């Protein structure tokens, strides 16, 4: 019988530990980022950006201490869901932020509604989550897929004069969608995408696809590659002398600061677009870049800006409700009204998707000879793009 008694005691202990809740006067924020694995570097940027925002606020809002808990979602939807449950049920956070890997956002959607837990997405771009699958609990300070791409398609045709474009992107729902949006934007401006090439995400060698580009003989090539693949693409595109024949334009990920630093001269002259660039010449952005550099001793990237932006939105809303983030309806209302100017201006539309500025950038040597994404054009007030038409209110 002794064995049984022991076991029951330890069981009771487990209950006691699991049941304990955090102090009520803290603002608990869960950060979901893929801190291990291949997205570790972007995740680090995002967390650093968010941390900077929390520190600038003095680590408190309306006298309530901000407590952040970082969890690694491993860029796997299953893990993201499990970690969100842990943050919600065990750590009892008031709000979640982060998410880089798009499928993770989709995976969390149902659970967040069920749990009535707000999430501010800093990066993940699946379009439906602020459109037909929108929920009151999900906000996005990052962009939705298509939001920047459709207007850029127009821009490339009308302003840059590329009427015939070849799309080469990684093969995923996201990649294919973006290809279609570029196509739609082009068509709207009187051009066309003449060929779409979708290659595996982990493509090592792009040479086989170059032959197809040559056959199509376009005015420009639009590319969507990220991380290591982006670096390879830029290098090989240059190695094969493609860049002289077919100007390269692409999504901002293609010329991410980390990528162009590693790529060097082969990236020079590539035109890309994003909702931000460290080279944006405004006092607000300069202040952010300077503060980030000072705090972390490294250059901010797009994910740093993303993390900073999401954290700032949460801070602003928390301030508006006097720190009472536990009152979810009030907090959600406050979030909707948030407007930010740092590092670049955003506000939320009726579907809780941030309205961004579109920055057209060109890779060129900046002050000190280092390559930067210099801003060569800006389109303000870019709302998310509704491929099936915006529903009537």
């Amino acid at each position: 019988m002794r064995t049984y008694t022991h076991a029951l005691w330890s069981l009771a202990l487990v209950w006691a530990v699991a049941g304990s809740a955090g102090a009520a006067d803290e603002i608990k924020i869960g950060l979901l980022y893929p801190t291990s694995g291949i997205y570790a570097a972007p995740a680090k940027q995002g967390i650093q950006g968010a941390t900077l925002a929390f520190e600038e606020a003095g680590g408190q809002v309306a006298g309530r201490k901000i407590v952040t808990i970082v969890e690694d979602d491993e860029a796997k939807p299953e893990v993201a869901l499990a970690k969100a449950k842990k943050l919600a049920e065990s750590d009892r956070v008031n709000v979640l932020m982060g998410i880089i890997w798009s499928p993770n956002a989709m995976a969390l959607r149902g659970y967040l509604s069920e749990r009535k837990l707000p999430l501010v997405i800093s990066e993940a771009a699946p379009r439906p989550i602020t459109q037909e699958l929108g929920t009151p609990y999900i906000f996005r300070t990052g962009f939705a897929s298509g939001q920047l791409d459709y207007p850029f398609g127009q821009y490339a045709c009308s302003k840059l004069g590329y009427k015939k474009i070849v799309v080469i992107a990684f093969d995923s729902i996201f990649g294919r969608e973006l290809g279609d949006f570029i196509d739609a934007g082009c068509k709207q401006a009187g051009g066309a995408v003449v060929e779409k090439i979708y290659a595996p995400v982990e493509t090592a060698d792009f040479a086989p696809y170059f032959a197809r580009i040559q056959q199509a003989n376009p005015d420009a090539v639009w590319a969507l590659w990220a991380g290591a693949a982006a670096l390879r693409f830029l290098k090989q595109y240059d190695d094969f002398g493609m860049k002289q024949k077919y100007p390269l334009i692409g999504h901002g990920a293609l010329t991410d600061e980390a990528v162009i630093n590693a790529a060097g001269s082969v990236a020079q002259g590539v035109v890309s677009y994003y909702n931000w660039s460290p080279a944006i010449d405004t006092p607000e952005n300069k202040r952010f870049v300077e503060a980030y550099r000072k705090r972390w001793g490294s250059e901010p990237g797009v994910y740093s800006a993303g993390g900073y932006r999401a954290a700032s939105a949460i801070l602003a809303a928390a301030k508006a409700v006097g720190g009472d983030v536990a009152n979810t309806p009030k907090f959600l209302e406050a979030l909707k009204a948030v407007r930010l100017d740092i590092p670049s201006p955003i506000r939320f539309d009726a579907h809780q998707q941030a309205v961004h500025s579109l920055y057209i950038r060109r890779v060129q040597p900046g002050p000190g000879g280092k390559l930067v994404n210099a801003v060569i054009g800006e389109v303000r007030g870019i709302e998310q793009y509704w491929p099936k038409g915006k529903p009537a209110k």
Partner: protein
Amino acid sequence: MQLVAFQVVNGLVYGMLLFLLAAGLSLIFGLMRVLNLAHGSFYMLGAFIGLALVQATGNYWLAFFVAPLLVALLGAVFEILFLRPLYRREHGGHLDQMLLTVGFIFVFVDVVRSIWGGDVLGIPTPEALSGAVSIFGVFLPKYRLFIIVLGLALAATLWFFIEYSRLGAMLRAGVDDADMAEGLGINVSRMFTLTFALGVGLAALAGVSSGPMLGVHTGMDLEILIVTLIVVVVGGMGSLKGALIASILIGEADTFGKAYFPEATMFLTYLIMVGVLLFRPTGLFGIRQDA
């Protein structure tokens, strides 16, 4: 016609890179019966150490020669410290050794990420090999041609070494029958260390020489591992000839697949493997395997 020639050459480039990896993996398996699943990790280490050397000295060729040597040294230490204690176990401890190398996949990638961070990095193409040449109207980067030459030269060197050198003869004896080799007075444990060092050194060479073409990042270990394993299995474990032929076969299949059947590329290599193993359960040139 030019397009086909262009793809053939590109397939060859990829094939040669695979050959450097497959040759080492196959030799290690052939002699030691150890399936080194950390082979991709040594490839990655080669690339990162090469990158560090390029950054420190600015000299690509120094990195090209020194990084593989350093990794080979690391491989020798690895073999002595971790693999050697396991040979005495049941069935030569080969299952344990394989599992051990799986553990090191995780360890190596975390160590590399801790040192170099998770960012994408690149090795600049050496001055002498940058730019491109046009052969019969086919436009090819010089560096790619260099990879082909490197792969073929190494294939010839390895073949020559195995066929004609004393060490090579011992190696062949060991591959055929480890017990017999020991009976002939060959110091098998030193042979094992040397072979392992050679094998992972070749992987590191592949890593450092792919740097200017494919970049350097922390996911490169697993990206290359699976396809290398497929090459070795198709060619037959322990066969250099098999490794060469299968490397070219898979390299060309992958390249042509991408160009002409883009939707099916992901399956093509697996289908080749399943097909080959269906008819030849030990690969195209595999040794009989009783273990």
